[in-house]
Protein backbone atom coordinates (compact mmCIF):
# COMPACT_ATOMS: atom_id res chain seq x y z
CA UNK A 1 0.00 0.00 0.00
CA UNK A 2 1.42 3.39 -0.96
CA UNK A 3 1.99 6.12 1.59
CA UNK A 4 -0.90 8.18 0.18
CA UNK A 5 -3.19 5.16 0.33
CA UNK A 6 -2.31 4.71 4.02
CA UNK A 7 -3.03 8.38 4.76
CA UNK A 8 -6.34 8.09 2.88
CA UNK A 9 -7.26 4.90 4.74
CA UNK A 10 -6.71 6.64 8.09
CA UNK A 11 -8.65 9.70 7.00
CA UNK A 12 -11.59 7.38 6.25
CA UNK A 13 -11.03 5.60 9.59
CA UNK A 14 -11.12 8.96 11.38
CA UNK A 15 -14.37 9.89 9.62
CA UNK A 16 -15.88 6.55 10.58
CA UNK A 17 -14.97 7.16 14.23
CA UNK A 18 -16.82 10.50 14.38
CA UNK A 19 -20.51 11.07 15.08
CA UNK A 20 -20.92 13.85 12.53
CA UNK A 21 -20.18 11.39 9.72
CA UNK A 22 -23.05 9.17 10.81
CA UNK A 23 -25.29 12.18 11.32
CA UNK A 24 -24.71 13.17 7.70
CA UNK A 25 -25.00 9.67 6.28
CA UNK A 26 -28.01 8.89 8.48
CA UNK A 27 -29.79 11.99 7.22
CA UNK A 28 -29.02 11.13 3.60
CA UNK A 29 -30.52 7.68 4.12
CA UNK A 30 -33.46 8.77 6.28
CA UNK A 31 -34.74 11.55 4.01
CA UNK A 32 -35.87 9.32 1.07
CA UNK A 33 -37.40 6.79 3.47
CA UNK A 34 -39.39 9.48 5.29
CA UNK A 35 -40.34 10.97 1.92
CA UNK A 36 -41.76 7.66 0.69
CA UNK A 37 -43.55 6.92 3.97
CA UNK A 38 -45.22 10.34 3.91
CA UNK A 39 -46.34 9.87 0.29
CA UNK A 40 -47.70 6.41 1.06
CA UNK A 41 -49.73 7.82 3.94
CA UNK A 42 -50.89 10.99 2.15
CA UNK A 43 -52.66 11.81 -1.05
CA UNK A 44 -51.29 14.28 -3.57
CA UNK A 45 -47.65 14.78 -4.33
CA UNK A 46 -44.95 17.08 -5.60
CA UNK A 47 -46.53 17.59 -9.02
CA UNK A 48 -44.61 20.80 -9.77
CA UNK A 49 -41.11 19.31 -9.61
CA UNK A 50 -39.39 17.25 -12.33
CA UNK A 51 -40.82 13.68 -12.36
CA UNK A 52 -43.00 14.58 -9.34
CA UNK A 53 -46.25 13.64 -11.04
CA UNK A 54 -44.93 10.13 -11.82
CA UNK A 55 -43.70 9.41 -8.33
CA UNK A 56 -46.33 6.76 -7.61
CA UNK A 57 -45.80 5.09 -11.00
CA UNK A 58 -42.36 3.64 -10.21
CA UNK A 59 -39.78 3.61 -7.44
CA UNK A 60 -37.30 4.87 -10.03
CA UNK A 61 -38.82 8.36 -9.84
CA UNK A 62 -38.25 8.72 -6.09
CA UNK A 63 -34.49 9.36 -6.02
CA UNK A 64 -34.80 11.98 -8.78
CA UNK A 65 -37.44 13.89 -6.83
CA UNK A 66 -35.45 13.61 -3.59
CA UNK A 67 -32.37 14.91 -5.41
CA UNK A 68 -34.32 17.99 -6.38
CA UNK A 69 -35.49 18.75 -2.86
CA UNK A 70 -32.16 18.00 -1.18
CA UNK A 71 -30.15 20.23 -3.53
CA UNK A 72 -31.49 23.44 -1.97
CA UNK A 73 -29.81 23.12 1.42
CA UNK A 74 -30.10 19.55 2.72
CA UNK A 75 -27.20 17.93 0.90
CA UNK A 76 -25.01 21.06 0.96
CA UNK A 77 -25.43 21.13 4.74
CA UNK A 78 -24.60 17.50 5.42
CA UNK A 79 -21.69 17.68 2.97
CA UNK A 80 -20.30 20.79 4.66
CA UNK A 81 -20.79 19.14 8.05
CA UNK A 82 -17.88 16.81 7.32
CA UNK A 83 -15.94 18.75 4.68
CA UNK A 84 -15.82 21.87 6.86
CA UNK A 85 -14.41 19.85 9.71
CA UNK A 86 -11.78 17.86 7.83
CA UNK A 87 -8.86 20.22 8.57
CA UNK A 88 -10.40 22.29 11.36
CA UNK A 89 -10.87 19.20 13.55
CA UNK A 90 -7.11 18.66 13.49
CA UNK A 91 -6.72 22.19 14.82
CA UNK A 92 -9.38 21.57 17.44
CA UNK A 93 -7.73 18.35 18.61
CA UNK A 94 -4.21 19.77 18.28
CA UNK A 95 -3.26 16.78 16.14
CA UNK A 96 -1.93 18.60 13.08
CA UNK A 97 1.49 18.90 14.70
CA UNK A 98 1.29 15.21 15.65
CA UNK A 99 0.84 13.98 12.08
CA UNK A 100 3.04 16.61 10.45
CA UNK A 101 6.04 15.52 12.50
CA UNK A 102 5.94 12.01 11.03
CA UNK A 103 7.27 11.01 7.60
CA UNK A 104 4.53 12.27 5.34
CA UNK A 105 4.77 15.49 3.38
CA UNK A 106 2.08 18.08 3.90
CA UNK A 107 0.91 17.58 0.32
CA UNK A 108 0.23 13.89 1.00
CA UNK A 109 -1.74 14.72 4.14
CA UNK A 110 -3.81 17.29 2.25
CA UNK A 111 -4.39 14.87 -0.63
CA UNK A 112 -5.55 12.19 1.83
CA UNK A 113 -8.03 14.61 3.38
CA UNK A 114 -9.32 15.75 0.00
CA UNK A 115 -9.83 12.18 -1.21
CA UNK A 116 -11.63 11.26 2.01
CA UNK A 117 -13.94 14.27 1.59
CA UNK A 118 -14.65 13.29 -2.01
CA UNK A 119 -15.41 9.74 -0.89
CA UNK A 120 -17.85 10.95 1.75
CA UNK A 121 -19.58 13.22 -0.79
CA UNK A 122 -19.98 10.40 -3.30
CA UNK A 123 -21.21 7.99 -0.66
CA UNK A 124 -23.80 10.56 0.49
CA UNK A 125 -25.24 11.03 -3.00
CA UNK A 126 -25.27 7.36 -3.97
CA UNK A 127 -26.57 6.22 -0.57
CA UNK A 128 -29.43 8.70 -0.79
CA UNK A 129 -30.21 7.78 -4.39
CA UNK A 130 -30.09 4.03 -3.90
CA UNK A 131 -32.06 4.07 -0.63
CA UNK A 132 -34.66 6.24 -2.39
CA UNK A 133 -34.80 3.71 -5.23
CA UNK A 134 -35.24 0.78 -2.86
CA UNK A 135 -37.82 2.56 -0.68
CA UNK A 136 -39.75 3.75 -3.75
CA UNK A 137 -39.64 0.31 -5.36
CA UNK A 138 -40.96 -1.31 -2.19
CA UNK A 139 -43.84 1.16 -2.16
CA UNK A 140 -44.69 1.38 -5.87
CA UNK A 141 -42.63 -1.23 -7.69
CA UNK A 142 -39.72 -1.10 -10.12
CA UNK A 143 -41.43 -0.09 -13.36
CA UNK A 144 -40.52 1.85 -16.50
CA UNK A 145 -39.94 5.57 -15.97
CA UNK A 146 -41.55 8.45 -17.81
CA UNK A 147 -38.78 10.79 -18.97
CA UNK A 148 -38.94 14.60 -18.85
CA UNK A 149 -39.81 14.49 -22.55
CA UNK A 150 -42.81 12.31 -21.77
CA UNK A 151 -41.43 9.12 -23.33
CA UNK A 152 -41.28 5.79 -21.51
CA UNK A 153 -37.88 4.49 -20.47
CA UNK A 154 -37.43 0.83 -19.48
CA UNK A 155 -36.65 0.14 -15.82
CA UNK A 156 -33.18 -1.16 -16.68
CA UNK A 157 -32.34 1.91 -18.75
CA UNK A 158 -33.89 4.10 -16.06
CA UNK A 159 -31.49 2.57 -13.53
CA UNK A 160 -28.52 3.46 -15.76
CA UNK A 161 -29.88 6.99 -16.09
CA UNK A 162 -30.22 7.20 -12.32
CA UNK A 163 -26.58 6.18 -11.74
CA UNK A 164 -25.38 8.67 -14.36
CA UNK A 165 -27.55 11.38 -12.80
CA UNK A 166 -26.17 10.66 -9.33
CA UNK A 167 -22.62 10.96 -10.66
CA UNK A 168 -23.33 14.32 -12.33
CA UNK A 169 -25.24 15.51 -9.26
CA UNK A 170 -22.20 14.75 -7.10
CA UNK A 171 -20.12 17.31 -9.05
CA UNK A 172 -21.69 20.55 -7.73
CA UNK A 173 -21.87 18.94 -4.30
CA UNK A 174 -18.13 18.33 -4.53
CA UNK A 175 -17.83 22.04 -5.39
CA UNK A 176 -19.49 22.88 -2.09
CA UNK A 177 -17.27 20.34 -0.31
CA UNK A 178 -14.16 21.94 -1.87
CA UNK A 179 -15.27 25.36 -0.68
CA UNK A 180 -15.84 23.91 2.82
CA UNK A 181 -12.31 22.40 2.76
CA UNK A 182 -10.93 25.83 1.83
CA UNK A 183 -12.77 27.48 4.72
CA UNK A 184 -11.72 24.67 7.05
CA UNK A 185 -8.07 25.21 6.12
CA UNK A 186 -8.15 28.99 6.26
CA UNK A 187 -10.38 29.61 9.30
CA UNK A 188 -9.28 26.50 11.26
CA UNK A 189 -12.78 26.65 12.74
CA UNK A 190 -15.28 23.89 12.11
CA UNK A 191 -18.50 25.82 12.80
CA UNK A 192 -17.41 28.80 10.70
CA UNK A 193 -16.51 26.49 7.83
CA UNK A 194 -19.79 24.55 7.92
CA UNK A 195 -21.91 27.70 8.10
CA UNK A 196 -19.75 29.50 5.54
CA UNK A 197 -20.03 26.66 3.02
CA UNK A 198 -23.80 26.48 3.51
CA UNK A 199 -24.05 30.24 2.99
CA UNK A 200 -22.02 29.86 -0.21
CA UNK A 201 -24.43 27.18 -1.46
CA UNK A 202 -27.49 29.27 -0.54
CA UNK A 203 -26.00 32.36 -2.19
CA UNK A 204 -25.57 30.39 -5.41
CA UNK A 205 -29.20 29.28 -5.20
CA UNK A 206 -30.37 32.81 -4.45
CA UNK A 207 -28.47 34.31 -7.37
CA UNK A 208 -30.14 31.76 -9.59
CA UNK A 209 -33.66 32.94 -8.77
CA UNK A 210 -33.09 36.70 -8.69
CA UNK A 211 -34.46 38.65 -11.67
CA UNK A 212 -31.79 39.99 -14.00
CA UNK A 213 -29.35 37.13 -13.41
CA UNK A 214 -30.38 35.14 -16.46
CA UNK A 215 -27.02 35.78 -18.13
CA UNK A 216 -24.96 34.21 -15.36
CA UNK A 217 -27.50 31.59 -14.31
CA UNK A 218 -26.09 28.74 -16.45
CA UNK A 219 -22.71 29.22 -14.78
CA UNK A 220 -23.83 29.29 -11.17
CA UNK A 221 -22.97 26.33 -8.97
CA UNK A 222 -26.61 25.87 -7.93
CA UNK A 223 -27.71 25.51 -11.54
CA UNK A 224 -25.43 22.50 -11.98
CA UNK A 225 -27.66 20.53 -9.58
CA UNK A 226 -30.13 20.41 -12.51
CA UNK A 227 -27.61 19.14 -15.08
CA UNK A 228 -28.93 15.59 -14.71
CA UNK A 229 -32.19 16.72 -16.37
CA UNK A 230 -30.26 16.38 -19.63
CA UNK A 231 -30.08 12.60 -19.17
CA UNK A 232 -33.86 12.36 -18.80
CA UNK A 233 -34.68 14.00 -22.09
CA UNK A 234 -35.21 12.15 -25.34
CA UNK A 235 -32.81 12.40 -27.02
CA UNK A 236 -30.37 13.06 -24.18
CA UNK A 237 -29.29 16.68 -23.89
CA UNK A 238 -25.56 16.63 -23.20
CA UNK A 239 -25.06 20.39 -23.12
CA UNK A 240 -25.94 20.93 -19.41
CA UNK A 241 -23.98 17.80 -18.47
CA UNK A 242 -20.82 18.93 -20.26
CA UNK A 243 -21.18 22.45 -18.85
CA UNK A 244 -21.58 20.99 -15.35
CA UNK A 245 -18.41 18.93 -15.79
CA UNK A 246 -16.11 21.82 -16.78
CA UNK A 247 -17.74 24.38 -14.53
CA UNK A 248 -17.60 22.10 -11.50
CA UNK A 249 -13.96 21.34 -12.28
CA UNK A 250 -13.38 25.06 -11.68
CA UNK A 251 -15.65 25.21 -8.62
CA UNK A 252 -13.77 22.22 -7.18
CA UNK A 253 -10.28 22.99 -8.41
CA UNK A 254 -9.89 26.65 -7.49
CA UNK A 255 -10.83 26.33 -3.78
CA UNK A 256 -8.71 23.18 -3.48
CA UNK A 257 -5.67 24.88 -5.00
CA UNK A 258 -6.13 27.78 -2.58
CA UNK A 259 -6.60 25.42 0.38
CA UNK A 260 -3.57 23.36 -0.61
CA UNK A 261 -1.33 26.44 -0.88
CA UNK A 262 -2.44 27.61 2.56
CA UNK A 263 -2.00 24.13 4.04
CA UNK A 264 1.50 23.73 2.61
CA UNK A 265 2.76 27.07 3.90
CA UNK A 266 0.87 27.67 7.13
CA UNK A 267 2.58 27.87 10.48
CA UNK A 268 1.36 25.12 12.76
CA UNK A 269 1.48 26.65 16.20
CA UNK A 270 -0.49 25.23 19.09
CA UNK A 271 -2.62 22.95 16.92
Amino acid at each position, binding site marked *: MTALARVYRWEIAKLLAQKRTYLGLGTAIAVPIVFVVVLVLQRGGPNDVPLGRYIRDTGLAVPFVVLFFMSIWGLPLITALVAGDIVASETHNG*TLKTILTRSRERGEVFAGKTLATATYTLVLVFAMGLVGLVAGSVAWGFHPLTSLSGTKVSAGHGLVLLLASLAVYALPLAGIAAFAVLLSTVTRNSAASVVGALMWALLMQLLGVLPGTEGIRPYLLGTQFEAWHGFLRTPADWAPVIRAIWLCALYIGLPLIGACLVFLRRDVAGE
Partner: protein
Amino acid sequence: MSDAPPVETRGLVKRYGEIVAVDHVDLSVEPGDVFGYLGPNGAGKTTSLRIMLGLIRPTAGSARLHGRDPLIDGAKALEGVAGFVEAPRFYPYLSGRRNLRLLADYDEPVSRARIDEVLELVELRDRAKDRVGGYSHGMRQRLGIAAALLRAPRLLLLDEPTTGLDPAGMRDMRELVRRLAGEGITILLSSHLLHEVEELCNRVAIIRRGAIVYQGRLRELLSRAASTYRLNALEPERARAVLLAHSGVGGVRLDGSALRFSAEEEVVAALTVALGQARVAFTALVPETATLEELFLGMTDGESSDHDRPAAVAV
Protein backbone atom coordinates in the same frame (compact mmCIF):
# COMPACT_ATOMS: atom_id res chain seq x y z
CA MET B 1 25.44 13.91 6.40
CA SER B 2 26.34 11.33 9.03
CA ASP B 3 28.88 13.74 10.54
CA ALA B 4 26.37 16.54 10.79
CA PRO B 5 25.28 17.41 14.33
CA PRO B 6 21.85 16.16 15.39
CA VAL B 7 20.66 19.76 15.83
CA GLU B 8 22.24 22.87 14.40
CA THR B 9 20.54 26.24 14.11
CA ARG B 10 22.19 29.28 12.62
CA GLY B 11 20.87 32.81 13.02
CA LEU B 12 17.37 31.55 13.65
CA VAL B 13 14.84 34.39 13.78
CA LYS B 14 11.07 34.28 14.10
CA ARG B 15 9.08 37.49 14.17
CA TYR B 16 5.36 37.91 14.72
CA GLY B 17 4.83 41.51 13.62
CA GLU B 18 6.75 43.65 16.09
CA ILE B 19 7.40 40.75 18.44
CA VAL B 20 10.66 38.86 18.04
CA ALA B 21 9.97 35.39 19.41
CA VAL B 22 13.35 33.94 18.42
CA ASP B 23 16.29 36.28 17.97
CA HIS B 24 19.34 34.95 16.10
CA VAL B 25 19.54 31.64 17.93
CA ASP B 26 22.61 29.49 17.23
CA LEU B 27 22.25 26.08 18.83
CA SER B 28 24.41 23.05 18.42
CA VAL B 29 23.52 19.68 19.90
CA GLU B 30 26.18 16.98 19.60
CA PRO B 31 25.55 13.23 19.24
CA GLY B 32 24.87 11.61 22.61
CA ASP B 33 24.01 14.90 24.31
CA VAL B 34 21.17 15.25 26.74
CA PHE B 35 20.76 18.91 26.01
CA GLY B 36 18.72 21.10 28.32
CA TYR B 37 16.95 24.04 26.73
CA LEU B 38 15.98 26.54 29.39
CA GLY B 39 14.21 29.85 29.45
CA PRO B 40 11.27 31.64 31.06
CA ASN B 41 7.80 31.19 29.57
CA GLY B 42 7.57 33.00 26.27
CA ALA B 43 11.37 33.08 25.87
CA GLY B 44 11.17 31.28 22.53
CA LYS B 45 11.90 27.65 23.42
CA THR B 46 8.78 26.10 21.92
CA THR B 47 8.95 28.37 18.87
CA SER B 48 12.54 27.20 18.27
CA LEU B 49 11.45 23.56 18.58
CA ARG B 50 8.56 24.13 16.17
CA ILE B 51 10.96 25.57 13.60
CA MET B 52 13.30 22.59 14.05
CA LEU B 53 10.39 20.20 13.40
CA GLY B 54 9.27 22.14 10.33
CA LEU B 55 5.96 23.17 11.86
CA ILE B 56 6.60 26.88 11.41
CA ARG B 57 8.79 28.81 9.00
CA PRO B 58 11.58 30.96 10.39
CA THR B 59 11.73 34.61 9.39
CA ALA B 60 15.48 34.20 8.89
CA GLY B 61 18.20 31.65 9.53
CA SER B 62 18.11 27.90 9.32
CA ALA B 63 17.55 24.83 11.46
CA ARG B 64 19.11 21.53 10.46
CA LEU B 65 18.56 18.09 11.94
CA HIS B 66 21.37 15.70 11.04
CA GLY B 67 22.27 18.20 8.32
CA ARG B 68 18.78 18.43 6.81
CA ASP B 69 16.59 21.52 6.80
CA PRO B 70 12.84 20.76 7.15
CA LEU B 71 12.11 23.84 5.06
CA ILE B 72 14.09 22.43 2.15
CA ASP B 73 14.00 18.67 2.68
CA GLY B 74 10.45 18.44 4.06
CA ALA B 75 9.58 15.30 5.99
CA LYS B 76 12.94 13.71 5.04
CA ALA B 77 14.59 16.11 7.49
CA LEU B 78 12.72 14.31 10.27
CA GLU B 79 14.20 10.88 9.49
CA GLY B 80 15.52 9.49 12.76
CA VAL B 81 13.89 12.35 14.66
CA ALA B 82 10.91 12.16 16.98
CA GLY B 83 9.36 14.11 19.79
CA PHE B 84 6.65 16.60 20.56
CA VAL B 85 6.13 20.28 21.17
CA GLU B 86 3.92 21.44 24.01
CA ALA B 87 1.75 18.55 25.19
CA PRO B 88 1.52 15.55 22.84
CA ARG B 89 -1.92 15.48 21.22
CA PHE B 90 -3.89 12.53 19.87
CA TYR B 91 -7.27 11.74 18.34
CA PRO B 92 -9.54 11.53 21.40
CA TYR B 93 -12.07 9.29 19.66
CA LEU B 94 -9.47 6.60 18.83
CA SER B 95 -7.89 4.20 21.30
CA GLY B 96 -4.27 4.57 22.36
CA ARG B 97 -3.32 1.58 20.23
CA ARG B 98 -5.20 2.90 17.16
CA ASN B 99 -3.51 6.27 17.57
CA LEU B 100 -0.12 4.57 17.57
CA ARG B 101 -1.05 2.44 14.57
CA LEU B 102 -2.17 5.56 12.71
CA LEU B 103 1.09 7.36 13.49
CA ALA B 104 3.13 4.31 12.53
CA ASP B 105 1.30 4.22 9.19
CA TYR B 106 2.25 7.87 8.67
CA ASP B 107 5.82 6.54 8.77
CA GLU B 108 6.13 2.92 7.73
CA PRO B 109 3.74 0.25 9.03
CA VAL B 110 5.07 -1.61 12.06
CA SER B 111 4.09 -4.94 13.58
CA ARG B 112 1.58 -5.29 16.37
CA ALA B 113 4.42 -6.61 18.50
CA ARG B 114 6.37 -3.36 18.07
CA ILE B 115 3.34 -1.34 19.17
CA ASP B 116 2.93 -3.64 22.18
CA GLU B 117 6.61 -3.17 22.95
CA VAL B 118 6.43 0.63 23.13
CA LEU B 119 3.14 0.50 25.02
CA GLU B 120 4.79 -1.82 27.51
CA LEU B 121 7.76 0.51 27.81
CA VAL B 122 5.55 3.43 28.85
CA GLU B 123 3.30 1.17 30.93
CA LEU B 124 0.16 1.79 28.91
CA ARG B 125 -0.50 -1.67 27.58
CA ASP B 126 -3.40 -2.26 29.95
CA ARG B 127 -5.15 0.90 28.74
CA ALA B 128 -4.27 0.54 25.07
CA LYS B 129 -7.83 -0.31 24.03
CA ASP B 130 -9.36 2.72 25.78
CA ARG B 131 -10.09 5.92 23.91
CA VAL B 132 -7.45 8.59 24.41
CA GLY B 133 -10.25 11.03 25.31
CA GLY B 134 -10.43 9.25 28.65
CA TYR B 135 -6.67 9.34 29.34
CA SER B 136 -5.14 11.46 32.09
CA HIS B 137 -2.56 14.09 31.23
CA GLY B 138 0.23 11.83 32.41
CA MET B 139 -0.99 8.95 30.25
CA ARG B 140 -1.02 11.22 27.20
CA GLN B 141 2.52 12.32 27.96
CA ARG B 142 3.57 8.67 28.12
CA LEU B 143 1.68 7.91 24.92
CA GLY B 144 3.61 10.81 23.36
CA ILE B 145 6.86 9.13 24.30
CA ALA B 146 5.55 5.82 22.92
CA ALA B 147 4.62 7.53 19.63
CA ALA B 148 8.11 9.03 19.45
CA LEU B 149 9.80 5.70 20.16
CA LEU B 150 7.87 3.98 17.36
CA ARG B 151 10.18 5.83 14.98
CA ALA B 152 13.28 4.30 16.62
CA PRO B 153 14.76 7.80 16.77
CA ARG B 154 18.40 8.90 16.95
CA LEU B 155 17.24 12.30 18.16
CA LEU B 156 14.37 13.04 20.56
CA LEU B 157 12.97 16.55 20.91
CA LEU B 158 10.95 16.75 24.10
CA ASP B 159 9.15 19.92 25.08
CA GLU B 160 8.64 19.97 28.85
CA PRO B 161 7.83 16.26 29.07
CA THR B 162 7.15 16.28 32.82
CA THR B 163 4.77 19.25 32.80
CA GLY B 164 1.57 18.42 34.61
CA LEU B 165 2.76 15.05 35.90
CA ASP B 166 2.48 14.04 39.54
CA PRO B 167 5.73 13.42 41.44
CA ALA B 168 5.70 9.70 40.65
CA GLY B 169 5.00 10.41 36.98
CA MET B 170 7.83 12.93 36.88
CA ARG B 171 10.21 10.44 38.41
CA ASP B 172 9.17 7.76 35.91
CA MET B 173 9.53 10.17 32.99
CA ARG B 174 13.01 11.21 34.12
CA GLU B 175 13.95 7.56 34.50
CA LEU B 176 12.73 6.91 30.97
CA VAL B 177 14.70 9.86 29.57
CA ARG B 178 17.80 8.63 31.39
CA ARG B 179 17.29 5.14 30.00
CA LEU B 180 16.83 6.41 26.43
CA ALA B 181 19.92 8.58 26.74
CA GLY B 182 21.74 5.49 28.00
CA GLU B 183 20.77 3.75 24.78
CA GLY B 184 22.63 6.43 22.83
CA ILE B 185 19.67 8.55 21.76
CA THR B 186 20.49 12.26 21.57
CA ILE B 187 17.92 14.23 23.52
CA LEU B 188 17.00 17.89 23.33
CA LEU B 189 14.88 18.57 26.37
CA SER B 190 13.16 21.79 27.19
CA SER B 191 12.22 21.49 30.81
CA HIS B 192 10.44 23.70 33.19
CA LEU B 193 12.25 22.25 36.16
CA LEU B 194 15.81 23.36 36.69
CA HIS B 195 16.74 20.53 39.03
CA GLU B 196 15.50 18.15 36.36
CA VAL B 197 17.92 19.63 33.84
CA GLU B 198 20.67 19.54 36.45
CA GLU B 199 19.91 15.88 37.02
CA LEU B 200 19.60 14.76 33.38
CA CYS B 201 21.54 17.05 31.07
CA ASN B 202 25.20 17.31 30.21
CA ARG B 203 24.87 20.48 28.12
CA VAL B 204 22.47 23.40 28.34
CA ALA B 205 21.39 26.52 26.53
CA ILE B 206 19.61 29.32 28.32
CA ILE B 207 17.33 31.49 26.23
CA ARG B 208 16.03 34.86 27.31
CA ARG B 209 13.66 37.02 25.26
CA GLY B 210 14.40 34.93 22.20
CA ALA B 211 18.20 35.12 22.45
CA ILE B 212 20.70 32.59 23.83
CA VAL B 213 22.47 33.94 26.91
CA TYR B 214 24.48 30.80 27.69
CA GLN B 215 25.33 27.64 25.82
CA GLY B 216 27.80 25.01 26.92
CA ARG B 217 28.53 22.25 29.36
CA LEU B 218 26.42 22.28 32.49
CA ARG B 219 29.50 21.46 34.57
CA GLU B 220 31.28 24.55 33.26
CA LEU B 221 28.26 26.69 33.95
CA LEU B 222 28.09 25.47 37.53
CA SER B 223 31.85 25.83 38.02
CA ARG B 224 31.59 29.50 37.05
CA ALA B 225 29.84 30.15 40.31
CA ALA B 226 32.16 27.92 42.28
CA SER B 227 34.79 30.65 42.19
CA THR B 228 32.85 32.47 44.92
CA TYR B 229 34.10 31.87 48.46
CA ARG B 230 32.97 32.64 52.00
CA LEU B 231 35.46 33.53 54.71
CA ASN B 232 34.48 33.60 58.40
CA ALA B 233 37.23 35.45 60.23
CA LEU B 234 37.44 36.46 63.89
CA GLU B 235 38.41 39.98 62.84
CA PRO B 236 36.47 40.59 59.61
CA GLU B 237 37.80 44.10 58.98
CA ARG B 238 41.43 42.97 59.14
CA ALA B 239 40.67 39.97 56.97
CA ARG B 240 38.95 42.30 54.47
CA ALA B 241 42.10 44.41 54.28
CA VAL B 242 44.18 41.30 53.50
CA LEU B 243 41.71 40.26 50.77
CA LEU B 244 41.70 43.68 49.18
CA ALA B 245 45.49 43.79 49.16
CA HIS B 246 45.81 40.35 47.55
CA SER B 247 46.00 40.22 43.77
CA GLY B 248 43.50 38.02 41.98
CA VAL B 249 40.76 38.57 44.57
CA GLY B 250 37.66 40.44 43.50
CA GLY B 251 34.11 41.26 44.52
CA VAL B 252 34.96 41.45 48.21
CA ARG B 253 31.97 42.25 50.35
CA LEU B 254 31.09 41.89 53.98
CA ASP B 255 27.78 40.14 54.72
CA GLY B 256 27.32 40.35 58.47
CA SER B 257 30.29 38.50 59.96
CA ALA B 258 31.12 36.66 56.70
CA LEU B 259 33.25 37.96 53.87
CA ARG B 260 32.44 36.93 50.34
CA PHE B 261 34.79 37.20 47.43
CA SER B 262 35.63 35.60 44.11
CA ALA B 263 38.97 34.14 43.13
CA GLU B 264 40.54 31.25 41.28
CA GLU B 265 41.39 28.14 43.28
CA GLU B 266 45.20 28.76 43.26
CA VAL B 267 44.68 32.34 44.43
CA VAL B 268 42.62 31.06 47.35
CA ALA B 269 45.42 28.66 48.30
CA ALA B 270 47.88 31.56 48.37
CA LEU B 271 45.40 33.61 50.32
CA THR B 272 45.36 31.12 53.22
CA VAL B 273 49.14 31.65 53.55
CA ALA B 274 48.70 35.44 53.39
CA LEU B 275 46.02 35.33 56.10
CA GLY B 276 48.34 33.22 58.26
CA GLN B 277 51.25 35.60 57.75
CA ALA B 278 49.01 38.52 58.68
CA ARG B 279 47.95 36.54 61.78
CA VAL B 280 44.28 36.75 60.83
CA ALA B 281 42.47 33.84 62.40
CA PHE B 282 39.55 32.34 60.52
CA THR B 283 37.10 29.57 61.26
CA ALA B 284 35.91 28.80 57.74
CA LEU B 285 36.98 29.34 54.13
CA VAL B 286 34.53 27.52 51.87
CA PRO B 287 33.58 27.62 48.19
CA GLU B 288 29.96 28.60 47.61
CA THR B 289 28.46 26.68 44.69
CA ALA B 290 25.45 28.31 43.13
CA THR B 291 22.60 26.13 42.03
CA LEU B 292 21.52 26.12 38.42
CA GLU B 293 18.46 27.97 39.61
CA GLU B 294 20.54 30.84 40.98
CA LEU B 295 22.60 31.00 37.81
CA PHE B 296 19.48 30.85 35.68
CA LEU B 297 17.81 33.67 37.62
CA GLY B 298 20.97 35.70 37.33
CA MET B 299 21.09 35.25 33.58
CA THR B 300 17.44 35.93 33.00
CA ASP B 301 17.21 38.89 35.35
CA GLY B 302 15.03 36.85 37.66
CA GLU B 303 12.29 36.42 35.08
CA SER B 304 10.03 33.60 36.09
CA SER B 305 6.82 32.09 34.90
CA ASP B 306 3.31 31.65 36.09
CA HIS B 307 4.25 28.18 37.25
CA ASP B 308 6.77 29.10 39.91
CA ARG B 309 6.96 26.54 42.61
CA PRO B 310 8.74 26.63 45.94
CA ALA B 311 11.49 24.24 44.95
CA ALA B 312 11.70 24.94 41.28
CA VAL B 313 11.58 27.77 38.84
CA ALA B 314 9.39 27.31 35.83
CA VAL B 315 11.15 28.31 32.66
